[in-house]
C-alpha cells in the first residue's frame, strides 16, 4: 500500500471537468511530478490532495485512511508549499520558522531552525520582516517553513517559482535529500531540470484529464 493513494479523482467546476478519473500513488521516499501545460489541473490535484479543495468524486488516502486535513495526524504528516502562504507582517523570518517548529513541537527547535535557515540561504535575512523580502526570498521562506517541521509527504506546487538558477539547483539537491530520508514528494512543476533531477515518476496531465 502506497503512502498516498489517489483513486478516480474528479474535480468539476461549473460544466468543466478540470480533472477526471485521476489515479496516482506515491510511496515513502518516492517523488512524483505532475507536469502539463497551464490549466491542465495540476494545482487542482494538489489542492484536492491537501484538502484545500473538495473533489467532485474519487478518494484520497494517506496510509490507507481517508485524508482528512482536520486531523492532527494528517496535519503533522503533510507539509505543503503552495502559492498562498500568508505571513505575519510583524514577525521576522527566523521568528516565523521558530513559530512553525514550536507549534509542531520539534525537538531542539533552535538547532533545526538554524540548520534550515542556512540551507535555504536566509541567514542574513533572519531578522528581516517578510514585507521587505524579495519574491525569491519569500519563496525560500515558504520552502523553509515546510522543511522546519515534521513531514512524511511533501506537496509542492511549482516550488521553483521565482527561484534563480542556483536556487533551482539547490532545491533539486534538497528534495533529493528529502527522498533519501524517506519523505514522499508530490509536486507540480514547469521546470524540466528539477523534474529530471528529483522525480522518480512523471505524471503528465492533459487538457480535461
Amino acid at each position, binding site marked *: 500500500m502506497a503512502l498516498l493513494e489517489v483513486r478516480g479523482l474528479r474535480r468539476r467546476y461549473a460544466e468543466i471537468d478540470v480533472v477526471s478519473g485521476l489515479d496516482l500513488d506515491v510511496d515513502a521516499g518516492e517523488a512524483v511530478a505532475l507536469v502539463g501545460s497551464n490549466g491542465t489541473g495540476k494545482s487542482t490535484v494538489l489542492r484536492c490532495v*491537501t*484538502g*484545500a479543495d473538495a473533489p467532485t468524486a474519487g478518494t484520497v488516502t494517506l496510509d490507507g485512511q481517508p485524508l482528512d*486535513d*482536520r486531523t*492532527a495526524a494528517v*496535519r*503533522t504528516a503533510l507539509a*505543503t508549499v*503552495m502559492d*498562498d*502562504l*500568508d*505571513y*505575519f*507582517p*510583524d*514577525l*521576522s523570518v*527566523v*521568528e516565523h520558522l*521558530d*513559530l*512553525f517548529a*514550536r*507549534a*509542531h*513541537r*520539534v525537538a531542539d*527547535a*533552535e538547532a533545526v*531552525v538554524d540548520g534550515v535557515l542556512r540551507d535555504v540561504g536566509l541567514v542574513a535575512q*533572519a*531578522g*528581516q*520582516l517578510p*514585507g*521587505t523580502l524579495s519574491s525569491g526570498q519569500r519563496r525560500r521562506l515558504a520552502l523553509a*517553513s515546510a522543511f522546519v*517541521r515534521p513531514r512524511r509527504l511533501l506537496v509542492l506546487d511549482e516550488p521553483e517559482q521565482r527561484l534563480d538558477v542556483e536556487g533551482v539547483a539547490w532545491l533539486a539537491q534538497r528534495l533529493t535529500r528529502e527522498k533519501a530520508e524517506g519523505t514522499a514528494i508530490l509536486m507540480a512543476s514547469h521546470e524540466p531540470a528539477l523534474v529530471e533531477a528529483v522525480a522518480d515518476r512523471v505524471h503528465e496531465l492533459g487538457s480535461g484529464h
Partner: protein
Amino acid sequence: MRALRAEIRHWRRGRASVRLADALQDAYIAVFATVMLGGMFVNAVIQAGAVTDELCVSATCQDTRGLVPWLVGGSSLLAVVAVARLFGPVYVTPADGSWLLTSPLDRRALLGPRLLRIMLVAALASAAAAAVGVLLVGTDLASGLGFTVTTCLLSLATAGACAYAQERERRTLAPTAQWVLLAALWGGAASVALDVAPSMPVPAAGDPLTVVAGVVAALLAGVAAVAAWRHLGHLRHRDVATGGELSPGLSGAFATLDLALAYDVVLAHRWKGRGAVTPRRGGPGGPLALVQVDLRRLRRTPQRLVVLVAAVVVPYAAAAAGAGRFVVLVAAATGFVAGLPLLSGLRVMARGPSLARAMPFSSAAAQSAAAAVPTVAALAFGIATTGAIAGGLTTAGWPAWVCGLAVGASAAASGVRWMTRRPPDYSKPLIATPAGAVPTNLYGSVIAGFDVLLLTTLPILLVPDLRGAAVSLALSAGVWGYLVSRSPAR
C-alpha cells in the same frame, strides 16, 4: 515643470474620455448628494444638541459638555497628525515616483500643489469636526465660527508642520506631536472622570482670548506652510514614495468597503517601513506558541496596550457626565475599538487558510490561541471599568464586577467579529441598488463588530443587573466560540 504641464495639456487635447454633459451630470449628483446628506447630518447634530440641552442640567454635566468642542477639535488635530504620518503627508503615486521624480524637474514645483491640497483637506476636515463640536453644545454663531476658524488654522499649521517634518532626519517631530495631543486629550477625559474638569466654554467671539488664539493660529499656519513649502525641494524619493505605495491598496480596500483589508494594508505598510526586528526565539510548543508570539508582540509594540489601558478613562468620563446605563455601551465600544490593534495576529490567521493549515492543530485551536491574549486584555479592560459601570447602573459588589466582565467579553467578541469577518464577495449574486450592484454580504461586512457589540450589550441595557450581565456574558462567549471555530476565509 511648466513645459511638462503644457505638454500634458497638448496630449490630452482631443482625447477626452468623458463628455462635458456627463461630467456636469456627475458633478450635479455629487453636489446634490453632499448637500442632502450634509443637511441630514447637520440636522441630526442640532437635534442631538437640543436633546442634551434638556438632559444636561447639572453643573458637572454642563462643565463636561463645555469640553466637547475642545475634545472634538483636539481629536481632529490628532487625526490630521496620524493620517499625515501614514501617508507622508506629501506623497506621489508609484507612476509619478518612477516617471517624474527620476527626472530633473523642480521638485518643489511638482510637490507644491499636492501640499496645498493636503493642507486644504486637513483644514476642511478639522473645520467640519469643530463645527460639529460647537453645534453639539449649542454655542452662538459668532463664537462657534471663531472656534471653528481657529481650529481650521491650527489644522493647517499641523499639516504644514508634518510636511516640514517629513524629511527622514526630522521624523521625531510628528510622533512627538501625536503623543502630546493624545496625552492632552486623555488629560481632558481624565479630568471629566475625576470630576475636576475645568469650566471651559468656547470663548465669545469678541473675547481677547479668541482674537489672540486666532492670530497665533494664523501665524503658526503661515510659518508652517512656508517652512513646508521651502523644504519640499529637499524631500527625497524615499520620503514621498512610501505613502504613494499605500494609497492604491487603501483605495482598493475602501472601494470595496473592506475595512479589514484596509487594516491589513496599513499594518503591512507600517511593518515594512520598520524593516527588521531583533528576533526572539524559544518558548512553549503547540498552540501556546501562538499565545507566546502575541505576548512578544505586546513587548515589541507596547503602545497598543498603553492605548487600551488609557482608554479605561473614557467610560469613567461618560459615567461622570451622567451617561447612566449607556456607560455599558460606551465602555464596550471603547474596549472594542481600543482593543483592535491587539488582534493583528488573529487577523492574519483568519484572513486566509494557509497559516492555519500549516499548524498541526485545528483551525479553531489556532484561532483561539491567536485570540487568547487580546481576549484576556479585553476582559481586564472590562473589569477595570467596573467602577464606571457600577455608577452608571447603580449596582455594587460582585454583580458590578460581573457587569464589568460582561463588558470586557462584549468588547472581545466584537473585536473577534471585526477581525474574522468575511470580505464582500463579488462572485456571489449581486443586488441592484441606486449605487450600483453590491454583494449580499456587503452591509454585513461594514457593520461587523458593531452588530455583536449591540447584541451583547443589549441584555445589560435592558436589564441592568446581574441577570442582564449573565445573559450578555453567555452571548459573548457563544459568539466568540462560534467565530474562532469557523474556518478561515478562502
